[in-house]
């Protein structure tokens, strides 16, 4: 058996939400352990170059880090609590299973990278705060399995962590305000962004302006990106999509088209961008729900069609003692993730107290903004029409759209579970993280979005990360 770390509060994730939760929990008096797959705190949003060999952290700030001062503040408090022995920080470890036995939560971990030297530990805690964040939501597009096609967030993470670009000439496509910082980050790092293609249109925001206006910081951010776009002459084309990625062994160009409000391609609007080496796609984010789901947390569909965990005003889930913060309660950005993390950490440290949540109004405002954003940037209803039968949907098991619709229509695979068993879509290495949303849409039928039940069954991943059989063999209870 690996070493057992026993604490009052365990936190999974050291992104904005997890870092805030850990700090709030220790400052409220709890002994805390933080498990994170990354090698250093920051998560996705505050991802930065490796600190090893760097004396401080302030000098590693790369391009485009909004809220970096918040990071530095949380990080200083986190480091202080670590030095005081109040936080046990377990980086480089992935939780492969979370269990709730008796009144303790148990986390079992494995090294995220075999050669990293991170030693797996088992964490036992009275309360658990899950802040595992999410990843870019993807839709299959003809040619999206060619090398050179990447997740938009992945391109940004690449630049932030490595200080280099994954290519030279980029097209960024999908939907949502997040495409802007991705494109701006590429341009600032010296890459050429040929176009940003947004499937929605700015007018989609009109009904939601009141909610959006409640969060002035976001508007400022938007203006900063507008300046970058102007400086680098990045065309921002709304109601446009990539219909196909061209190339044989790698992405070489894209074909695009204009779409109507439902995402239907307008005939005669095709256009080709040649000489493209990286295509980035982002259709919002998918919260990482396997740990909450495995612990029995009640879930719901959020406005963006994602499955999220239900929490009360103290961020507690339907499972007593289990708190959720950040993207897993609804995609809403780093500022909201920090606010939720602070609330969750404080509540988990002192569950009996009725000290009111800090900044409930700010949390509510950010959630309203997020809802407005989701309504203005939906996954286009007609996206399934963009597929051709030979488009790969499940990248791991190489299952095509044609095979999936055949299983649906001939074998009655009208939910993701049967679809998986009949076609193997979602059965490979990534366990349906990449294709899960798309497969759930396809099993529901043309023009349909998946319901909560279908997404919950696709989020059922009894192993939250691959784990060695040898490590399993060491489990005896």
């Amino acid at each position: 058996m690996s070493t057992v770390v026993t604490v009052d509060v365990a936190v999974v994730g050291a992104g904005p939400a997890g870092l805030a939760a850990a700090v709030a929990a220790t400052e409220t008096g709890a002994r805390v352990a933080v498990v994170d797959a990354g090698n250093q705190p920051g998560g996705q949003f505050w991802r930065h170059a490796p600190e090893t060999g760097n004396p401080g952290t302030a000098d590693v700030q790369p391009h485009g880090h909004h809220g970096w001062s918040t990071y530095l503040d949380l990080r200083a408090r986190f480091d202080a609590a670590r030095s005081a022995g109040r936080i046990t920080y377990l980086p480089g470890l992935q939780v492969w299973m979370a269990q709730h036995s008796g009144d303790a939560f148990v986390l079992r971990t494995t090294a995220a990278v075999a050669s990293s030297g991170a030693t797996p530990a088992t964490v036992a805690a009275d309360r658990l705060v899950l802040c595992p964040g999410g990843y870019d939501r993807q839709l299959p597009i003809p040619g999206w399995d060619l090398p050179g096609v990447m997740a938009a967030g992945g391109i940004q993470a690449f630049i932030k962590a490595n200080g280099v670009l994954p290519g030279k000439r980029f097209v960024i496509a999908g939907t949502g305000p997040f495409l802007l910082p991705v494109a701006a980050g590429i341009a600032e790092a010296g890459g050429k962004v040929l176009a940003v293609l947004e499937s929605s249109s700015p007018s989609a925001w009109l009904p939601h302006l009141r909610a959006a206006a409640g969060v002035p910081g976001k508007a400022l951010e938007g203006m900063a990106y507008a300046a970058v776009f102007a400086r680098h002459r990045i065309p921002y084309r709304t109601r446009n999509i990539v219909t196909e990625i061209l190339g044989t062994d790698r992405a070489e160009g894209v074909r695009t088209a204009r779409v109507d409000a439902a995402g239907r391609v307008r005939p005669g609007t095709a256009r080709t961008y040649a000489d493209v080496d990286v295509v980035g796609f982002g259709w919002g984010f998918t919260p990482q729900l396997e740990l909450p789901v495995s612990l029995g947390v009640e879930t719901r569909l959020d406005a963006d069609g994602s499955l999220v965990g239900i929490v009360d005003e103290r961020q507690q889930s339907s499972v007593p003692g289990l708190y959720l913060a950040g993207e897993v309660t609804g995609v809403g950005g780093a500022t909201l993730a920090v606010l939720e993390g602070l609330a969750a950490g404080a509540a988990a440290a002192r569950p009996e107290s009725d000290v009111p949540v800090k900044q409930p109004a700010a949390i509510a405002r950010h959630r309203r903004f997020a809802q407005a954003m989701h309504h203005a940037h939906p996954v286009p209803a007609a996206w399934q029409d963009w597929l051709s039968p030979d488009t790969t949907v499940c990248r791991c098991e190489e299952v095509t759209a044609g095979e999936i619709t055949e299983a649906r229509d001939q074998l009655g695979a009208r939910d993701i579970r049967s679809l998986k068993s009949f076609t193997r879509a979602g059965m490979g290495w990534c366990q349906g993280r990449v294709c899960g949303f798309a497969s759930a849409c396809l099993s529901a039928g043309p023009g349909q979005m998946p319901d909560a039940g279908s997404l919950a069954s696709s989020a059922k991943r009894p192993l939250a990360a691959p784990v060695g059989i040898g490590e399993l063999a060491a489990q005896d209870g």
Partner: protein
Amino acid sequence: MTHGSDVLVIGAGVIGAATAYFAARQGLSVTVLDKGLPASGTSSACEGNILVSDKELGPELELTRYSLGVWHHDLEEHKKLWEFDSKGGIIVASRESSLASLHRVMAVQKSYGVDVEELDQSALRDAEPHISPEALGGASYREDCQVQPMLVAAHLVRLATEAGARFIADCPVSGFLGSGPDGGRVTGVRTPRGDFPAGAVVNCTGTWAGELAAMAGVEVPVLPRRGFVIVTEPLPAMIRHKVYAAEYIDNVGSSDAGLQASPVVEGTPAGSILIGSSRERVGFDRTVSTAALGLLARNATALFPFLKDVKAIRHYHGFRPYCPDHLPVIGHDDRAPGLWHAAGHEGAGIGLSAGTGKLLAQALAGLTPDMDLSPFAPARFSAPGKHTPVHREEATA
């Protein structure tokens, strides 16, 4: 709904699907109802082994071999649909004592016509190059084969509908027409979607079969026996047969409630290796047991040491439907005329489905089944005293 079917099948797992398929092929009008989609019960949470090697001598071995014939002949044209693979099984003994029992079992099996061949240490290594150096010897069963069970159920339902059957998903049966506490004739079923009259009703509901039988006022004791299976990362072919430890034979028929696991390790067409499967009687407990996973992993690495560096990417569990005497219930229930059962196939329902379906269809059509079904008669549970499990030397899956 006024016009009834000849046969109404409850449950679209492998057993219900096979029954519907063969009944439709007999020319009967068939309706299949499931509370979910095809293969939403145990048939989607198992492995697809069709094993001769582990069967108890007697009615189950007979049914297994009959079923094997049905897979090979009646269903020959559809083999590709469910990835039928005649890969053969190998039992491995790693202790002198288990080698000795294996030899004893083989001798008896041979006398019953089972195709089994002894493998000495070097023949074993030729057959499975990555087997543990500790393995002392084994037995090769060429008749053992494998299918993808979810595809079996789904395609048999589809083929049944092509032969004229009707399938209705999301249609849970909530009671029977005609039956009462005084045991009237069962004339159909009730569902939230309406009543479905039928000449014969077949209960193919696996672990739910006892519940359904109770609705008709009869006892069919089908209980759940939990099993975990570990799935590895996709690998190049490292394991050629279904390989299991001699100790497995002792476990399958055991009535011990505690956790047991003997490894059954096999490659799949998709590259993943399946490590199955534990056996424990814990009711319908769905919580993950790290103890069960640990035991499976230890046993599997003892058989194939290279597995210790291989990654598990998934595990799943299912509930085997079993009867106290480890024999399935197949046939007409004389206690509730009009009601038939095909359930309780425990760890062998996939393999036995083809034969079960064909035999039952013959009986439903009023023909004499190719094989005597009386050992599986549902009424064996009614008479007190007959209830006690028969002593079984080796066992039944």
